[in-house]
């Protein structure tokens, strides 16, 4: 079969690229076929044929042109031609044009809108004005309920007595005490709550007495407290009131009494002085008891000694707001409010704000007495009530001008931190703090833009208002109260972790310059130490006012230089520079700067020291101070940075004074866990050794350094090693090899130049090292990265030594399991004489997994052209290599370097024997290109045995030319015909060709007819309509041509059919 002409077409669209090649081949004199192949470029192509039987040249040309035309119409273009414009990728869309529109997002903080003016708040006055006082006392004196107060048109309303009592307590009207004592117990217990029943009046009286009463009330309250008939809430409030009114001695006595009422396991802890012991005891007790036992926290809160308080706070922070805990938490919340315990009040306020209600509606009301039995607690209504109560308590205190307002507000604000910022729902109208009711009231009560929503549960920006905060406008509630107690603001600045709180407090405290003026240096440093910029800036302003160049306070400067706020540090550097004489004289100041927490300060210290000359005694003292401070460092990462900088400062600026450090200290430094500290030790060692012989360093110290877990320290060790003379090093080959395969990269990398040096100076030792490294490479299980490092060395500076390796070693490397060893083998292979390598081995190497080996194999092959020509059968196996690149190289070599004379039939068959589609395709290409008539029969008979369908189809091309009129050949090819015809659902063209061929041959003589009929008889059992019909037709045709051959068919006459297709018996 000879290729007459071929056309390659390509089709490219998007990411797909398909090829379609059409071939016109001559299969015999005047016999032509048209084949096509198609598929994805680079992949295996599918074959097909347009001519079942060979045709005349003109017909073949027509089929060929038609097929090409069809494909061109489909969009294929001849290979190499320019592609149609439509398939060129559309130009990339312009990038970034819409970028400018993306900036209109509003800033996250919108809470501080402009205020509606400072005039909105009422000024603080007396807790109760004369009029209030008179009205309340009058109401208390009037016990009848029919008297009308505060008449309004259309309404007759009497001021509820309980409210009046409560108001008296709120305003601390001491004159009300006798009235209250008189009213005690006047309401029937069973009456309506509105009329003071259910203990409500007594509750209010006890509440008020605790706030306004004197020693005169103690007896009455004690009675109430002891009254077993009184409701629980009355007893509890009486207890609190009693405690509030008692003197220190009776408080202690009462506390002891309450301790005794605690469960026995807690007695010892509560009486002791260790908060930890009590916390542990309480945790253990609560851990082993039922949740109901949590009530002991309520009791302990009555005691509230410094011993028990931490444990109570811890419990309050984590107890769930749910039954049964909430029953007690509610008591504690009210007690905290009553006692003005800002910490507990703020803590619980935050928890109530942040904890969702257990259930949505408050149908499950919370009757105190039955709380233990209640299935649930802390419903939606309860939460709403409590949230509003927090602000109400504050508001009423604030309106009354009570200083407690500041106290409680500080407690509420301090509980918040930046972590409590909620995810934003709607950046335009809400901010991260919108959900907190009292918080926003305290901070933004006077904002004109930011206000509570209609349901008064959240705060949001009013419609149409800007959310951008206006600077320097005070928005908080009760600004006068804050100004009266600036220490509250200072407390917030010193302790709060919440940005809005700092913004508020810094602004508010600026309005009290007198207070700011009397703050001391430590207070200023506290402000400077905060991470909140407004506060730190305030601190810097204060510091600037305090700085006097003539009477300098060094501790202020040091504090500023160590402050978190960077501008403060920058300012401190300027001032420290101005005062350098004083500063350098004070070693504690310099030492503090050298080990400062911020790197710029440490840098400054280094600069300072670099430009200074210290007297020996001061220098030594400074070094001693810094070193001892370094030894005292912990093991935190930031400490390490400090230690490193300190080391470099000491080394670069205080070098002359370092000699004074003793060897014991050096060892201590080396033993320190921090790398920075160890580095100093190593550095000192290096200094000690560099003057003298480096070899004099004790071995144990050397090992200690080389095995340090910090690479800088190891680096010093390596430097020590590098300073050894080559002669000494050359005797340490083992150590060097060991370092080269160490798991630490720095050791490997640093030992590399040393080895290079030694290898140059002492070639025999270099060879030993190279050999040892080759062996280590052959050994498996080196740590990761090590083999590649060793390989780099062997490829690089030691390559001169490995080239002397024997050929057998090269094979060992190639056959090793390690890819790196194989690669080295591949490199060395280039030095092996190609003539010494058998062709078979070259072919094997072409399938090697390592590219360099394959490349070497190609080079060998390239140089062995003469041998290739003499043993083509062996050589052609390189085409069947495992790796595609080897195969492609082989194709190229065979195509370009070898002419047609090299490819006789056996070689082509060997190539086609491969099971790889690309090799088969190449084989077919060769078979067509270098086809010689005398090869035809061999090719046909040998390829007929190929198991692949594609090759079987290919073989059909030879049939008419080399098998026709040769009965002997047909007989030998019976298995081939059988297998082609037995293909299941594939090889249509091949089957048609074979059938046509068999039919033609069978008709020629009887001998062939026998063979053919046998084959066709077997195949005719198929249910494939096409094949069955064709085989039967062929058999009948053969029978007609050769009547002597027995036909294995019985021909049934078709039934006669009458009108309507009904069979008729004849």
């Amino acid at each position, binding site marked *: 079969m000879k290729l007459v002409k071929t056309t390659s077409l390509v089709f490219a669209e998007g990411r797909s690229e398909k090829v379609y090649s059409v071939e016109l081949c001559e299969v015999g004199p005047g016999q032509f076929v048209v084949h096509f192949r198609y598929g994805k470029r680079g992949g295996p192509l599918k074959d097909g044929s347009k001519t079942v039987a060979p045709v005349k040249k003109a017909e073949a040309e027509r089929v060929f042109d038609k097929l090409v035309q069809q494909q061109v119409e489909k969009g294929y273009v001849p290979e190499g031609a320019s592609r149609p414009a439509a398939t060129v990728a559309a130009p990339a*869309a312009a*990038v*970034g044009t*819409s*970028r400018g*529109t*993306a900036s*209109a997002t509003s800033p996250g903080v919108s809470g501080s809108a402009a205020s509606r003016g400072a005039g909105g708040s009422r000024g603080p006055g007396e807790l109760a004005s004369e009029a209030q006082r008179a009205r309340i006392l009058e109401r208390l004196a009037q016990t009848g309920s029919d008297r009308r107060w505060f008449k309004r048109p259309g309404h007759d309303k009497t001021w509820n007595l309980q409210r009046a009592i409560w108001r008296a307590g709120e305003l601390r009207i001491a004159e009300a005490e006798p009235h209250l004592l008189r009213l005690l117990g006047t309401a029937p217990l069973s009456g309506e709550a509105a009329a003071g029943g259910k203990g409500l009046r007594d509750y209010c009286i006890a509440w008020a007495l605790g706030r306004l009463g004197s020693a005169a009330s103690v007896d009455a309250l004690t009675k109430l407290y002891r009254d077993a008939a009184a409701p629980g809430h009355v007893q509890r409030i009486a207890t609190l009131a009693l405690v509030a009114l008692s003197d220190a001695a009776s408080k202690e006595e009462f506390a002891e009494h309450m301790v005794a009422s605690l469960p026995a396991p807690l007695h010892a802890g509560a009486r002791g002085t260790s908060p930890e012991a009590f916390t542990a005891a309480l945790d253990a007790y609560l851990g082993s008891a039922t949740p109901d036992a949590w009530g002991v926290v309520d009791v302990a809160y009555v005691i509230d000694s410094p011993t028990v308080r931490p444990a109570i706070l811890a419990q309050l922070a984590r107890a769930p707001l749910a039954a049964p805990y909430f029953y007690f938490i509610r008591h504690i919340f009210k007690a905290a409010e009553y006692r003005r315990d800002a910490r507990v009040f703020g803590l619980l306020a935050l928890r109530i704000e942040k904890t969702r209600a257990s259930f949505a509606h408050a149908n499950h009301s919370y009757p105190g007495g039955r709380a233990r039995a209640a299935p649930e607690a802390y419903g939606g209504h309860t939460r709403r009530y409590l949230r509003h109560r927090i602000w109400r308590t504050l508001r009423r205190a604030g309106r009354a001008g009570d200083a407690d307002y500041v106290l409680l507000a500080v407690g509420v604000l301090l509980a918040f931190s930046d972590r409590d910022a909620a995810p934003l729902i*709607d950046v*335009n109208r809400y901010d991260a703090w919108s959900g907190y009711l009292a918080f926003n009231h305290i901070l933004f009560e006077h904002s004109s833009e930011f206000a509570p929503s209609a349901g008064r549960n959240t705060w949001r920006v009013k419609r149409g208002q800007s959310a951008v905060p206006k600077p320097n406008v005070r928005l908080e509630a009760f600004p006068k109260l804050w100004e009266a107690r600036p220490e509250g603001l200072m407390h917030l600045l010193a302790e709060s972790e919440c940005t809005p709180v700092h913004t508020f407090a810094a602004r508010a405290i600026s309005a009290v310059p007198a207070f700011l003026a009397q703050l001391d240096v430590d207070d200023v440093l506290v402000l400077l130490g905060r991470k909140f910029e407004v506060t730190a800036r305030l601190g810097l302003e204060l510091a600037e006012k305090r700085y006097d160049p003539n009477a300098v306070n060094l501790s202020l400067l040091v504090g500023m230089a160590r402050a978190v706020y960077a501008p403060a540090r920058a300012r401190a550097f300027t001032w420290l520079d101005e005062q350098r004489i004083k500063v350098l004289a004070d070693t504690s100041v310099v030492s503090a700067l050298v080990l400062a927490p911020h790197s710029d300060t440490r840098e400054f210290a280094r600069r300072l020291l670099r430009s200074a000359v210290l007297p020996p005694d001061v220098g030594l003292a400074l070094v001693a101070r810094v070193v001892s401070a370094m030894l005292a460092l912990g093991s935190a990462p930031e400490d390490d940075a400090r230690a490193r900088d300190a080391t470099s400062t000491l080394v670069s600026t205080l070098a002359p004074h370092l000699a004074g450090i003793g060897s014991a200290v050096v060892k201590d430094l080396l033993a320190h866990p921090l790398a920075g500290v160890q580095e100093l030790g190593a550095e000192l060692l290096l200094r000690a050794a560099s003057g003298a012989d480096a070899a004099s360093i004790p071995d144990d110290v050397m090992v200690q350094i080389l095995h340090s877990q910090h690479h800088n320290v190891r680096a010093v060790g390596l430097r020590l090693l590098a300073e050894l003379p080559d002669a000494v090093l050359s005797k340490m080959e083992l150590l060097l090899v060991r370092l080269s395969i160490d798991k630490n990269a720095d050791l490997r990398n640093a030992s590399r130049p040393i080895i290079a040096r030694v290898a140059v100076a002492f070639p025999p030792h270099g060879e030993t090292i190279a050999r040892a490294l080759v062996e280590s490479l*052959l050994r498996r299980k080196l740590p990761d990265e090590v083999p590649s490092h060793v390989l780099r060395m062997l490829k690089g500076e030691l390559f001169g030594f490995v080239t002397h390796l024997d050929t*057998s070693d090269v*094979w*060992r490397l190639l*056959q*090793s*399991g390690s890819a790196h060893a194989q690669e080295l083998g591949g490199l060395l292979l280039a030095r092996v004489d190609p003539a010494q390598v058998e062709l078979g081995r070259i072919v094997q190497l072409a399938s090697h*997994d390592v590219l360099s080996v394959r490349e070497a194999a190609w080079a060998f092959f390239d140089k062995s052209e003469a041998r290739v020509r003499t043993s083509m*059968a*062996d050589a052609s*196996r390189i085409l069947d290599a495992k790796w595609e690149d080897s195969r492609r190289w082989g194709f190229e070599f065979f195509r370009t370097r070898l002419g047609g004379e090299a490819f006789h039939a*056996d070689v082509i*068959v*060997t190539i086609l*024997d*491969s*099971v790889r589609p690309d090799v088969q395709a190449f084989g077919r290409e060769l078979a067509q290109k270098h086809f010689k008539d005398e090869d035809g029969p061999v090719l046909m*008979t*040998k390829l007929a*045995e190929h*198991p*692949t369908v594609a090759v079987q189809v290919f073989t059909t091309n030879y049939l008419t030319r080399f098998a026709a009129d040769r009965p002997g050949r047909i007989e030998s090819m019976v*298995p081939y015909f*059988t*297998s082609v015809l*037995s293909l*299941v*659902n594939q090889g249509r063209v091949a089957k048609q060709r074979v059938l046509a061929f068999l039919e033609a041959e069978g008709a020629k003589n009887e001998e062939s007819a026998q063979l053919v009929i046998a084959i066709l008889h*077997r*195949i*005719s*059992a*198929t*249910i*494939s309509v096409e094949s069955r019909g064709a085989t039967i037709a062929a058999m009948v045709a053969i029978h007609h041509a050769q009547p002597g051959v027995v036909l294995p068919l019985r021909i049934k006459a078709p039934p006669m059919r009458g009108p309507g297709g009904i069979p008729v018996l004849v």
Partner: protein
Amino acid sequence: MEFQYSYKGSSTVAQSPDRTALSFSPDVTREPTYFSGEIGKPLAFREAISALHDVVVSDLRFKPKDKTAYKAWAAQQEIIDWDEIARQRAGNARQIKDLQAQLTELSARAASRTKPFFAERQKYFNWLWQKDRDAWYVLDPVITVHPDEVFFECFSEDESSYGRLGASYEVFENIGAFACGTTNVDYSAALYDEFQKIRSYKTTKLGIDPSGFEVTTTAEDAFKEVKIDLPDSWVRGFLQVNSAMALPARTFDLHPMDVHNLCFVLRRRKEKLGPRSMRWHLTPGQPVRVTFDPWGTEVICRRSIYKGADAAEIRVWGRRRLHILERLIPIASRFTVHLLGQGMPSFWVADLGHMTFTLGLSGWTSNDWSKSGNFDLLAPRKDVDEATKLKVFAALKKDWLATPDQLVATTGVSRAHVLGALSAWTQAGRAIYDLAKGVYRARELSREPLPLDALRFSNERESAAMRFIDAQAVTVRANAGPDNTMALGGRVKAGGNELLPSLVLDPDGRVVHGECTCNFFQQNQLRKGPCEHMLALRLQHQRQVH
């Protein structure tokens, strides 16, 4: 179950234009077994051993697509969509759109930049897959050398197909020295490619050579140690198919083109719904007919007349496994089919002249519990005492192969006891029934005897079910249900109680619903598989059907 082999070198095929030398490297820890000879009919051998390879790699189990990545993406996308809806409501739609466009552009650019990386990585993974492909083959084939033939056996990865290629000595020329025995051989995927190069014009030499094939001057380990941890179910499946060969079956011959036709039907259509069975209609004196569910396609094997005594209709499943036989169609002179019964293993013996290829198919492609009941196959046929068993085995091992009658003659044991002993040895993997020649052969599957007690049942419920059957404590009644389902109900007497299990089987014989009044079912429903009573019910029904 862990198997350990030790090979000296790898099996290799040396090719040259006129010669092919197959050298199998046997397990050196087993008793020395060796053989060498030239294959007289290389092409048939090539096709047959390729079919054997197809059995080894056959895995037709249903493998669902891994959709985790897609689901993760979809979940994320849903969040983004909802997010977008929320944002659109907030009036930022246009801005979002612009940003999205930018983002799309950026991700397209990122994708185009990372594309080469991913392409290369995929190439690397493909390479790794190719490189470690041998790890995919579960068990290396077993080669047995007997005085009359050499045979290769293997079992598929999906635990459902058994292949055996037996080559009589007539196939070989120039037979060298040989030692009878059984051994595992080293096998790799590359060998298959080399088998394809076998040609009739090359002399093809087959060698099983314990000395190994000295190929290289290598520093590698002298021995290749292979450890294979096989699932118990695999070994159980192998033994079940093995022991099923000795069971009585309906047998008929098929013309090679009949097998072609069966494969043709299966190649032409792909079923998307069950039942996926073939129904064999066997009528004495009539051509064998096969219908393919669910299409009802009928294939009449006009040249294959059923010669059995009584008519039967037998359904078998797992029909796509028959494609293994495709390569044998041109070279086979006939196929003999052995059908054990509905849902039971079937055997296809291809007559290749002096070679036979036996394909054993278990009842279903996947051997999960819902189709099981095949543990019955490992039940002892007859209780035979240990001494008799050993006596029979010793007699068998002496000549390596024997018919039961010959064993009766040599041992003097009654025929029933000989058969009982032989079936016990077959179940233990130490003997095999040769369907083609009708003889028992000594063939020890593994070096160490297999722990049959541990293998017989996959859990204790199966053994309990067997006890109920043995105690005849099960009654079963079957009713046809809607949609061709079958409802089984019955009673199982367990201790003093009577339990009422019931099952519903779909047209493919799978359990689609099951209930029982026992405690195990009350506690676990079907999550841990069926209870012993359901298993007993099903087994009893199976026995009644056959």
